[in-house]
Every structure is written in C-alpha cells, then in structure tokens.
C-alpha cells in the first residue's frame, strides 16, 4: 500500500491543461492541410496521382478532408508547395461539405449545439462507441481520451456500455455490410434527442475501403451525423477539440491561443 502511495507521489500530476493551453506538436506532425493553388504552375497533377484515397483534385485544387489520410504524400509530390500540412489540430466540422477544402473558402470549424441541446447535454454527455469495420486505430485514439493526460471525465463526457445509457453514438470504420444492421440497432436503441459523431476517414468517406464492395463507404444517410472528425486516426487533441466545440466549450480566447500556437509552432512549414 505504501509503495502505491509513494509511486503515486513520484508520478505526479500529468493532466494536460488543454483547452486552456494549446497542445505541443513535434515538427513532424501533419494537421490541417493548406492549399495554395496560385503556386501550382506546372499542372503536373502529382498530388492527385499519389493520393491513396483520391481525396485530392488538382484542377481546380480541392482536398476532401473527409477522405484525407494525412499521409502527406501530396505535399511530398508537389514541386511548388501548393499543398502544405500545417500543425493546426482543429479539424472538426458540423457539415460534411465543410470538409471540402478549397483556397477560396474559409475553413469552417464545428459550431456548438443549439441552446436546448446544450442545456440538456452541455454538462454531461454520454456516448456509446460503435466500431463498424474500424481497424482499431480510431478506436484506440477515441479510448485514449480516458487516460490521465486528456482526462475526458473533467468535461463531463463519458463512454458508456449501453446505448440505453447514451446521449449519442460515436461511429468509427467504413461501416461494413456485416455491421450495418448492428449499427442501426444501436442507433435506434439510444433514446432521443440523440447525437451522432463520426470519426476518421473510413466513417466519413469509406477511406481506403470505399470501393471494395464490402462496405457502405461510411456512415449511411439514414444516420444523421452532427459532428465530423477527420483523420487516420485523428490525434487525441483533434478529437477532444471536436467534442468540446460541439458542447460550446472552446471560447474565442482559446481559439486565438490555438491560432497563435500554430503560427509559432516548429511544425509550421
């Protein structure tokens, strides 16, 4: 018993100060890609050809963040730096079309729930996770938010064991034909009003498995999604940022701090 307490003292407090403090990322980190079509003069279409999920369209330059694996191959292929991955971890949106990046359009981050839903769920959000063909990458990053560093519980958010106890479901995976029935049953078992959060390239677009004939290429239309979180898998801070935006817990001051951190980050290139 004493050794447990001593070890507890030695380990100290490890909880991050997010969202009051911006997260630190190493230079290698690839967050939201930025598009600079004016730099593209050769028209080589290299970015389009190397994309494993056809998320990039060269002319005019578009990038579907919902299909993006953040592998950085397009950035690598481009001789003119027309696509650059920034260290911005904020990726969540409220509408699928907001994930279609172009230079003309400002990236529109997810907004908060309406006043009624916020009063219902703002201080206590229970989620049931359903993996529908997910490879266990999104799943482990969704689950990791429970550890002391992210400490999901301090925001009143919890993953629960039954859809009956949940305010919404969080879906990962391209939705395999073999799981669609169980997914729909789970969704139906959540008492209304209910939320749906879709996580990862597979759930958003089918990702690498959109055309194998074994999946529905992402969450089907009859399940209305309230929050889209792209990534393969998303970084835990990207996930947390998304959940907190939905609950209206990221204020303007925090957002400014995140923006400042991005511009001064060693990962800005």
């Amino acid at each position: 018993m004493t050794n447990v307490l001593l070890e507890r003292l030695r380990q100290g407090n490890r909880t991050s100060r997010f969202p009051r403090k911006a997260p630190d990322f190493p230079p290698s980190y690839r967050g939201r890609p930025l598009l600079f079509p004016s730099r593209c003069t050769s028209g080589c279409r290299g970015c389009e050809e190397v994309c494993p999920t056809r998320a990039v369209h060269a002319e005019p330059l578009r990038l579907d963040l919902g299909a993006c694996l953040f592998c950085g191959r397009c950035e690598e292929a481009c001789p003119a730096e027309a696509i650059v991955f920034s260290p911005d971890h904020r990726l969540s949106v409220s509408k699928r079309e907001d994930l279609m990046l172009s230079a003309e359009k400002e990236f529109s981050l997810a907004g908060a729930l309406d006043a009624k839903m916020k009063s219902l769920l703002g201080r206590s959000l229970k989620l049931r996770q359903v993996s529908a063909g997910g490879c266990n990458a999104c799943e482990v990053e969704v689950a990791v938010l429970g550890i002391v560093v992210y400490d999901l519980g301090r925001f009143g958010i919890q993953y629960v064991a039954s859809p009956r106890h949940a305010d919404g479901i969080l879906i990962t995976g391209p939705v395999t034909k073999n799981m669609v029935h169980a997914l729909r049953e789970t969704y139906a078992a959540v008492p209304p009003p209910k939320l749906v959060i879709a996580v990862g390239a597979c759930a958003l677009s089918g990702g690498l498995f959109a055309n194998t004939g074994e999946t529905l290429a992402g969450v089907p239309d009859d399940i209305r999604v309230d929050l889209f979180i792209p990534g393969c898998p998303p970084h835990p801070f990207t996930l947390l940022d998304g959940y907190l935006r939905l609950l209206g817990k990221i204020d303007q001051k925090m957002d400014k701090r995140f923006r400042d951190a991005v511009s001064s980050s060693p990962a800005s290139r």
Partner: protein
Amino acid sequence: MAILSTPSTGIVNAFRMDNCVAVPMADIPLCHEDDFRRCVMQCHEDGARLVALFMPEPSELMAVLSADESGELAVVRAKIGNSFSSLTAELPSAQAFEREIQEAHGVRPEGHPWPKPLRRHADLEEPASPESAHSFFAVQGSGIHEVAVGPVHAGVIEPGHFRFQCAGETVLHLEIQLGYQHRGVEAALRNAAPGSRISVAESIAGDTSIGHGLAHTGAMEALAGVEPPLRAQALIGIALELERLSNHVGDLGALCNDVAFLPGAAWLGRIRGDFLNSLLDLSGNRLGRGFLCPGGIRFDPDDTCRKSILKKLNAADKDLQHVLDVVFRAPTVVSRFEQTGKLSRALADTLGLVGPAARACGCDRDVRRDHPSGIFRFAQIPVTVNDAGDVMARAFTRAVETRRSMRFLREQLELLPPGPIAVTMPALLPDHFVVSLTEGWRGEIVHMAMTDSRGALVFYKVVDPSFHNWLGLAMAMRGQLISDFPLCNKSFNLSYAGHDL
C-alpha cells in the same frame, strides 16, 4: 533453390524457401493431392508448424510451414478440384484456413468437423443476425445456460460475437463468431496503385500499422529484388519495437484495470503515450502511419528528433520499471493473474499459437530470431519464454519483452548508422512468389504475394497473428468463471479487423 531431401531438418519433398526471398513460381513443384497431405503431415510431425494454408489460384492449394529451429520455410503445392480432404482433424491449426477457403472459393474441405463460415457475408437487403446466420455448438443438460455477447461490446473495442455455454458461473465452452469487420482488405491491396498499397497494409490492424506495413514492404522489396539501406533498416526496427512497447504497456495497464488495480492502469496508460509520441516524432502519426514505404522509409529523423526520442524513452523506462515493480508485487494483481486462463504447451502447439501468447505457454518461437530480416539479422533481441500458460505468464512475458525492446531501442538510437533512407523500387519480378514474416507485437504476421508474367500483383494474402490465436482464447476460457472473460480476453488482446480482413 531446388527440392531438397534432407531428413535431418525434417522437410522432405517440400520446397524450401527463406523469409523475404522471392522465388520463381515455376520452381515450386505441383504435387498430387494425396502427396500434399502426406508431405504437410510429415513436415508437421518433424516439428514444423503451419504458417498458412490457402488457394493462390483456382484449383491450387498451397501450404506454408515453418521449421523454426532451422529457420526455414517449407512450401507444398497441389492441384485440387471442387473439394479436398480436410487436414483439420489431424492438424487442428488448419481449421480456420480451411473454413476461409470454403467461404472464399467454394472449395469444400471434406471431413472438416465444424465447417461454418468464418467471416459472415451478410446480405444488405436481409440483415442477418448471428442466430439466423450460424448454428453454435450447444451443450445440453439440466442447469446449462447460454450467454451471448456482442457484436457491439461494452467498451471502446471492435465488434465480434461470443457465445458461452455455462454451468452456473463456469464456462464449459466458448465459441467466437467474427467477420463483422470484413472490409475486403486483400482485394483492396491487390487493386490499389503500387504506391498506395502500403496505406492499406497499415490499416489492416490499426494498432499494428508498423508490423503489417513492414510485412508488406518486405514482400514488395523481395519481389523487386532490393532491400532498404542500413539506416532505414535500423529505423524500421526502432519503429517496430516502439509499436511493441506501446501495445505491451497499454495492455498491461488494461489488465490492471480488469482486476481493479486502478493506479497501475492510470500510470501505464499514460506511459504508453510516450511510445506513441515517439512514433509521432518519427513519422508525424502516433501509430507510425506514413513512415514506411517500399524501399525504405519516408522521413529521416534529424539529431534533435533522435535525442528527443531517447530522452522520452529514458524517462518512460524509469517510470515503467517503478510501475511494473509495484504492479507485480501487488497481491490483488498476482492472485487474480495466476492460474487464470491457463493453456498447456501441448494445446498451444496443437492450435499453432504465435507471439507472446505462445511464448507464455513455453513455445520458443519468435520471427525476429527464427526468420530474421532487416536489422534483426545484425541486432538480436533475446526471446522471452515462460511456461505457466496463464494470464500471469502472458502479462509477465510482455513485461520482460518491454525491457528487452527498450535495450534494443537505446542501442540503435545511440548508434544510428548514417546514409540514405530509401532505394528506388524497380518493377516487380514476373511470375514470382514471396513469403514475408514479421514478428508484430501480437506475433507472427504473414504477407504472401505472387506476380503474373507482366510483374503485376495477382495474389495477395494476409495472416494476422490473431487468426491463429482466437481459438487459443476460446480454449483458455474452458473451466473458467465467466466473470474472468474480460481478463482472459485482454491478456490475448486479439485483433478483430486483422482476423476479418
């Protein structure tokens, strides 16, 4: 290479090949179905274990076996018709492979004792429930009851269906029905552009992105007749061991959680992040996605990055030693781990278990030593073997493996060889076949590929270690209390997606 007859190694009349060395298809002799059976059983009796059984093309059956002691692979190949005589009764490790063949090709394994579908292909119009799709083995008798769990589980984990036959609290039999995660991985690998295949391989099992990625690049490099430069080999080894550490440490934490030793769960869950963040430093992704490419790696860490990883590892190592010391001395942990979910060495061999689950039963096998490729030809990691076969042995095997991987990481990071990080990939050799093995953190990962006369990939087969080990979990549950299932399950922590493909 030729057909060798050297009874001393036990491989008689089987074609011998090495890990990650491509051979012309024409060199692998085609035999009669009866000889196929005799040859496979002979190899097995001489100590080789079944690595894979599959159909590389219609009407052709192929078996790959591993003679771990001599470090050789044996390949047996035969022409077959619409059915073949099942090996399962004599060679139980063939059971899932034969069910897979029946499901994918409609070729019947005659005499298979339980030939039910392996990955259920539900019709979208008629969503099938597990009940309607399959029959389950049922125990009869008074007081016997059945517990059905899944596909959606209580935790944040992948889906699968578990059917327990119980007498009171005691589990008499567990049957595991998977397939819910079937995404068409092998077809996606075959059809993807050559440069994109690695992304699919990295998504076979998300927690094994480096392991499966490496098995894939190993196969492609062998088919192209190249190998990555030394610096890349060292960095690939580093990434593979970081992946092993993150999963071992995370699972040790989850095991603490399952026996309600929450301090251990909290500390180990946090320490796991140091290894994932080291992979992030290397590759830009916490699971190491995007790091590997056929021919080498994509990112070259500078000295700042190398030092930052070393610093992280040294701190994590210190924390980990303190925590493991507390965990393995806690009576509440030890008393729950010991004698729970016990498997015998004989059963582990019969089922063909791999990885730490097999090593915890006394099976001395590890691809890094038995079939070394890349950096493991020059830097060996001692193999960790325990023989108790229970949850404690599985946990302790993994705890010891963390120490040994940590030492390897320090050595490699301190003396990282200079030089280029990738070679250009030439076209693949036509009409060649390759077997690529990697010791992932769960065990032996197998990728097999074949090219046609134009050098295009015509066949690709993946075997995740979970494919062998799921039946090990089912057998470990026999005679256990059903409330020990989460603990037993976590001590194996198998992949659903890797099994279902």
